[in-house]
């Protein structure tokens, strides 16, 4: 238990320990009890299974893309198949994995517990949002079966409205429905945080995980409807030939870009903010310190939600927008880097002089800090007007957003999944092999995407299935890296499932963390708490925890 030991993991005696007799998993039996559940924890698990399935599909597309790019010649797939591959990779990974990843699984599971509530404010709407995700996912699967879509995930007009006869409307409908799933998740989280906090759980006692989700939810609620109307208009142009974006009728294709990126830039923060929340929890727990500058980190989430809405035009600098507006948007893009930097610096200061231990979640979190910083700083390159003209639509931009989305968000997701796995299942994952998987993912990731920065800088355009022979060495490196990365992602899928049966019993609080979720049994009861908790301590108060544990030693038998 001393702070100088190499681990903080504190498991109950495995010879006598058992899982709690009553918990949310065995509260009811049968497949229907899962499909009709209103329990936020069960819905979180349903989401976890769903997005893992779609992550696998999106990953297969990524694998095929990298295989095709192994050689300069187009040999594995035809050019239009390649277009479909990267389009579906984008749609699946963004709308079916990244957007729901942390909020709908970990957020769903943890937010009510963290603020001392029995459930989200609208349990049925929560279930509805999962069904919408499944229906939207089915439309995406139908698109694949019917023959695919090749607009790119951006549905760019007039390409999507006039020049393609692939299944744009089916795919668009899928995205539209997935958007509503996301809106309902966000709405539920906002109302829950406002109205269901336990007595004593003031705004500034909430874990930063909740703050980050709150900010992301604001963006879901305000941004997603604009995507919905943009996609609706594309579908109407294709089917009824109205003229809102059609230049032949006087419409402006650029208007679509504005509406699309008004959502899709904030969507980047919808995806990354919940990841920030995970990192705050993990860094604090494995440094045994309160997050440095709690208030600054909390407000930086909100600041990102505000600034995030004011930068969308930086996706359009080369599309003939006015030079003056480009100037303003470039400046605003630089501004949004500030709250992100506040977080990075505050996490670094949390680590400083902390009692750091290197369990798996911490390893993923440290990977996150490094990779996200690279992703964020290269974003500054792209936000500056001169550099953007050179770098946009090249592999530089591909590398940049994969550093943010995979190196950032996926690492954060895995950090969170490992961190709360004992709480969700009651069992520990195997520590040694999971540390190995974190290292493998880190190496594989950098091997995949670092060469792409160089490729992009040298001028290799994105979205092509063939390239000049001089780029082959870097592409081979990238494909090799993707293979390693694939192994790194496959390992957790295997050992986490294994741990469901063979993992060590975790007990209530294996990390000795301070969050409310760690003070209840694992896995939790259906209504989370035996009686409504009253919160009389600040977030990340390790002294309170030590004091509480001392008292409990005498009372718990």
């Amino acid at each position, binding site marked *: 238990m001393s702070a100088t030991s190499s681990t903080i993991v504190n498991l109950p005696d495995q010879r006598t320990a058992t899982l709690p007799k009553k918990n949310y998993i065995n509260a009811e039996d049968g497949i229907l009890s899962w499909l009709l559940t209103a329990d936020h924890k069960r819905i979180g698990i349903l989401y976890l299974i769903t997005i893992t399935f779609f992550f696998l599909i999106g990953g297969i597309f990524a694998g095929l893309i990298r295989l095709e790019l192994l050689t300069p010649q187009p040999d594995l797939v035809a050019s239009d198949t390649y277009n479909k591959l990267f389009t579906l990779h984008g749609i699946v990974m963004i709308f079916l994995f990244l957007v729901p990843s942390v909020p709908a699984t970990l957020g769903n599971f943890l937010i009510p517990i963290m603020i001392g509530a029995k459930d989200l404010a609208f349990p049925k709407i929560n279930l509805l949002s999962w069904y919408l995700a499944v229906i939207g996912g089915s439309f995406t699967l139908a698109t694949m079966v019917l023959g695919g879509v090749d607009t790119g995930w951006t549905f760019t007009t007039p390409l999507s409205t006039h020049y393609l006869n692939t299944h744009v409307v089916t795919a668009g409908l899928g995205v539209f429905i997935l958007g509503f799933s996301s809106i309902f998740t966000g709405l539920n989280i906002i109302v829950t945080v406002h109205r269901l906090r336990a007595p004593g759980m003031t705004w500034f006692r909430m874990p930063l995980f909740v703050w980050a989700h709150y900010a992301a939810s604001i963006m879901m609620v305000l941004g997603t409807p604009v995507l919905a109307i943009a996609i609706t208009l594309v579908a109407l142009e294709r089917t009824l030939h109205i*003229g809102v974006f059609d230049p032949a009728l006087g419409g402006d294709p650029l208007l679509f870009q504005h509406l699309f990126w008004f959502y899709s830039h904030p969507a980047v923060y919808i995806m990354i903010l919940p990841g920030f929340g995970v990192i705050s929890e993990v860094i604090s727990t494995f440094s045994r310190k309160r997050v440095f500058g709690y208030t600054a980190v909390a407000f930086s989430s909100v600041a990102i939600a505000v600034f995030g809405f004011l930068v969308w035009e930086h996706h359009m600098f080369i599309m003939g927008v006015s030079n003056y507006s480009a100037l303003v948007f470039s400046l605003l893009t630089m501004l949004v880097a500030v709250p992100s930097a506040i977080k990075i610096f505050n996490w670094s200061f949390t680590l400083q002089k902390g009692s750091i231990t290197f369990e798996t979640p911490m390893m993923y979190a440290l990977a996150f800090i490094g990779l996200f910083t690279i992703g964020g700083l290269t974003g500054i390159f792209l936000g500056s007007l001169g550099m953007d003209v050179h770098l946009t639509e090249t592999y530089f931009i591909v590398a940049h957003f994969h550093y943010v989305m995979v190196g950032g968000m996926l690492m954060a997701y895995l950090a969170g999944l490992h961190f709360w796995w004992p709480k969700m299942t009651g069992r520990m994952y195997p520590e040694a092999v999971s540390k190995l998987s974190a290292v493998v993912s880190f190496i594989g990731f950098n091997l995949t995407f670092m060469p792409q920065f160089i490729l992009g800088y040298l001028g290799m355009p994105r979205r092509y299935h063939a390239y000049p022979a001089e780029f082959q060495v870097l592409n081979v490196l990238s494909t090799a890296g993707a293979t390693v990365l694939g192994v790194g992602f496959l390992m957790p899928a295997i050992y986490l499932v294994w741990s469901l049966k063979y993992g060590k019993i975790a007990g209530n609080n294996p990390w000795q963390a301070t969050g409310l979720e760690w003070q209840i049994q694992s896995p939790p009861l259906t209504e989370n708490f035996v009686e409504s908790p009253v919160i009389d301590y600040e977030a990340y108060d390790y002294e309170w925890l030590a004091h509480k544990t001392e008292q409990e030693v005498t009372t718990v038998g």
Partner: protein
Amino acid sequence: MDNTIVATHDTHAEEHHHSLPQLRHHFETEQQQREAGTFGMWLFLLTEIMFFGGLFFAYLLYRNWYNPAFVAASNQLSIPMGTVNTAILISSGFFMALGVWAAEVRKQGLLVLFLLLTTLFGCLFLGVKYFEYKEKWEKHHIPGANFDISEFVNPPLNPTTHKPIEEPLSPDMAKKTQVFFSLYFVMTGMHALHMIIGIVLLGWLTWRANRGEFTEGYVAPIENFGLYWHFVDIVWIFLFPLLYLINRHPGT
């Protein structure tokens, strides 16, 4: 056993008995549930504002770009029908507000009556809308289907003065009237879709109200649906002047 403890226990049980059967298990009090529901509804309406906001933004942009086309095209809309429809819709909203009041004062018959009147006026609105759309079809004002710009290039002559009743547009600008009509159909169509969804919900609410579900103290569904219905009203309150009324005759 101590008598006082038994007594407290009894009052506690009685208190529990008084709470509504609709109180969901994860809320502490009825008030908390009601506030959460209303808050959720307002947030949903916020998403609706953003949804329509995209369309209003498109309208603003194109109106600035193609002002002559927008003026000429908006003259094709029927102000009498638009005005009548506005009155009908406001009446529908008025009955909805009365319905919320009836639920709060627990008058079941009145509630059902007001919900039916709300539905009736909502359907009337859609009926008028049908005739407006039909007129557009006959005048070849449907973009993508049968659009004809000749009327904007060569406006009909005034029989007495033998001058065009409208300022003629160049063929290039006349084509832009399709943008106006595209927006007209998308905006009013989305509004009508919201009304249809609302009318379906009204049917369901009326059926439940008829069983007395909302006149025993549990008024949240009526109240929240009222918010939705008023929102749909307000969208029309913006659509009517923007599409039908403003700046119909520049320079006169």
